[in-house]
């Protein structure tokens, strides 16, 4: 699976399986292009529970979502120079003692590879690449 997203000039590419199993090792390759300044790239595997609530009103239906990260596993972390292309690889084990993905209408368990591109002072890009984790 190869997915590309670009924000604020920086372009993030991640190559990883779209489906994995609990207990497996997840291997990830990543690339950041056109970073606007010196950046720190942090790649992680994140598991989260996401609960939504629907509110109905005369003006329509709105959905409010709460999120709780229950797992954050580091995959890679690099510092790259302004305008340079950064890339790397990393791996982490999907913890076998946690839970697989769950796709309810209101309640979900989601897993994703997240890529944070930040400068010394602020976040430039935070992007998620979803993964379906099976039992």
């Amino acid at each position: 699976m190869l997915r590309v997203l670009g924000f604020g000039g920086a372009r993030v590419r991640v190559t990883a399986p779209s489906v994995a199993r609990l207990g497996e090792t997840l291997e990830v390759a990543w690339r950041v292009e056109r970073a606007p300044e010196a950046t720190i790239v942090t790649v992680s595997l994140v598991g989260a529970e996401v609960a939504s609530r629907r509110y109905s009103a005369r003006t329509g239906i709105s959905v409010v979502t709460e999120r709780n990260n229950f797992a954050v596993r580091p995959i890679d972390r690099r510092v790259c120079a302004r305008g340079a292309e950064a890339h790397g690889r990393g791996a982490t084990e999907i913890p076998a003692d946690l839970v697989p993905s769950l796709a309810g209408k209101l309640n979900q368990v989601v897993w994703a590879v997240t890529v944070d591109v930040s400068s010394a002072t602020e976040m430039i890009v935070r992007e998620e690449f979803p993964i379906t984790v099976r039992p």
Partner: protein
Amino acid sequence: MTDGVLALELQLDDAQASFEPGARLTGVASWQGGRPPTGMALELSWAASGWGGRDLKIVDTVPLASPLPAERRPFIIALPEGPFTFEGALIALAWKLELVALPGYEKASVALTIGPGRRAVDLRR
């Protein structure tokens, strides 16, 4: 046999209500009294209850054909690989097995735990 009320009971073998994912669930469904049921079924389901509401999924329905007015019916159900029973900060997921009688939809249920090591996963660690 008593009149009026249909008494339903679910008994799991070895009084065991915690299972590994994919395990085999065995037990006995029994009923007596009241009007003779026109139909009887076992329903295996999970419910994910969260901050914003509940998601419910019936995973398996096992019809118990031609029920007599009073009966003890052994059953075997293959449990799925997931989802696991879990408790999180926002969401909790629980499994149950129900014995459902028709036409009145009387029910008996038992809570099940399905997870690695036959334990619920605690996401609040």
